[in-house]
């Protein structure tokens, strides 16, 4: 999968694309670590080009969400494709993460 990073103000914006599964965990984990190193409190993950997530991918996102919240920040998700969104809904992780339809919507809702 491809991982890109941008920064807007205090928030790191990460763009992910492709399949997000066990095989990609180590790579994504290292990437999120580097995002956190520069922006310890906030990550906005744009997942609009992610085509698949499995349960180990979800546990990785939960792990980093917990880390962010411990630092009074958050890991926020936007742009989920409908079949990926279903996986968040089924596991009720939609009640745990702040999920926005688009990046603009997320940035608008967040305090700058």
């Amino acid at each position, binding site marked *: 999968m491809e991982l890109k990073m941008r920064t807007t103000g205090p928030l790191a914006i990460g763009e992910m694309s492709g399949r997000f599964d*066990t095989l990609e965990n180590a790579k994504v984990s290292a990437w999120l670590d580097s995002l956190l190193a520069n922006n310890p409190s906030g990550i906005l993950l744009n997942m609009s080009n992610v085509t698949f997530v*499995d*349960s*180990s991918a*979800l*546990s*990785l996102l*939960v*792990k980093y969400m*917990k880390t962010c919240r411990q630092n009074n920040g958050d890991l926020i998700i936007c742009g989920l494709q409908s079949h990926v969104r279903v996986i968040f*809904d*089924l*596991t*009720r*992780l939609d*009640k*745990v993460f702040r999920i926005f339809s688009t990046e603009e919507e997320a940035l608008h809702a967040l305090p700058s």
Partner: protein
Amino acid sequence: MIATAAPPHPLQNFLRAHHNHVSAITNSWLEMGAAGVGICTGDGWAGVWPETCRLDMPGIHVPMKAGQMNAELWVFGVSDAVAMTRLEADAVLLSRLMALEYELVDMTQELISSQDQLLALFSLSNAMQNQLSLREVLNTLAHESSKLFNLIYSATFLPSGNGEMFHYPQPVLDDHYMLRVFQTVARSGQRLVFSEGPVIGFPPDTLCGLVEPIVIQGEVKAVLCLLKQGVRFESPELKLLSGVCDQAGTQIKNVLLYQETLAQARLNAEMEVAKQLQIRLLPHHLPEVNGVDVAAASLPALQVGGDFYHFAAQPGEPFMFAVGDVTGKGMPAALLMAMTRTLLKSKTRTLQQSSPVDVLGAVNDEMYEDYTEIGMFSTMFVGLYDYWEKVLYFANGGHSPVIYCPAGSTAFMLEADGPPVGVLPECICENQLMEFHPGDVLVVATDGFNEARNPQGEMFGYERLLALIEASASESAQTIVNNLYQAVAAFSNGNAQDDDQTVVVIKGVR
């Protein structure tokens, strides 16, 4: 007291070896009327003929030279020009003879030392081939190369793993220094030549050092460091050295491969034990419960995984059951599964009259820290069937698929109302309630079924699952379980099972 004899001067060796030739020349001078003949060096007289000759009488002399050796040829008791001419001719002859002798000695020594090196090389390769541990290979390499190159110090250094360093005969360079030179060599991939005499307490230009890379699968993984007296390593030594290090690299690669195979075999054996243990952790018998027909099965994937289920059936009490799936695979998932299931077992026993949310909440409270530490979570469905009321209470922490098919009706999914165990510090699920009559079917499966793939990469999915359960709903719980496995296996069509497939089926009966 025994006097220690000084080693014979090379010139004396020469005079002994060419006694006949030298005698012919000296005898001829004595016959011509000379009082004596002598050969001397800066250290004194190497030979005098006759031995009784007085060395203070007048004589003539000429220089002799062969390689680094300077000497003088003397004749006593003569002084004319003819004698001088002849003496000069004799000196040229003897010098030439001496030069030939030295060349021969040098060549012999070179032959001996190259034979020594061949022997050392043979013993090095023999010694290394017999070693099956990395420590022994590195130790042998340091030890044998010291003999091979006539060194004052040699060391091998392999920084990966715990880091291994061997010195011979005594430590001279420390591991910080070695790490530094290793990094330099690893970056360049080239041998490093250095002159470290002053650094380690030797006078300048008395000591030369060399760090040779040991390459394993195209990467510098270790180095051999050598120190010897002298100004430089000669070209044949360098060639030999790179040969030695090539061989060492191959041997280290073999040892690593062997160790990897061994570790893999050990791991496989341990995993097999873990898998067996995990299967034993699941209930051995299906419970007999008034009002419902119960069936369950779990088919682990190749690796140990995190699926589990549990039944708590006590006479006269509602029947409690649970199904869960710890994320991920392998040992961490298996360990968390074992812990979670043990806790579940004790909570269903101790929390008398408890509801599904009580159990789910208690497990979440106790396991949240562990799940957070390891970075995992576990979906969990807990159900409670009340025979007297004909109702089913349930709490669902992020678990799917849970399929409910009322008798004679359409099957649908029961969605979770809270996230999995270990995600939030507090359980936010609520107890849900539905009537459960004879003919109603509840299937609590794990995602190993809907995520099973066929060789084309297509997933079995929820739609097929719902259709299958609807079609099998009139069968017994056990037949529904069997149909489910058969359908998914037929769909997978030989494609490897990626994830555990676990299912509990509860069917209302009269």
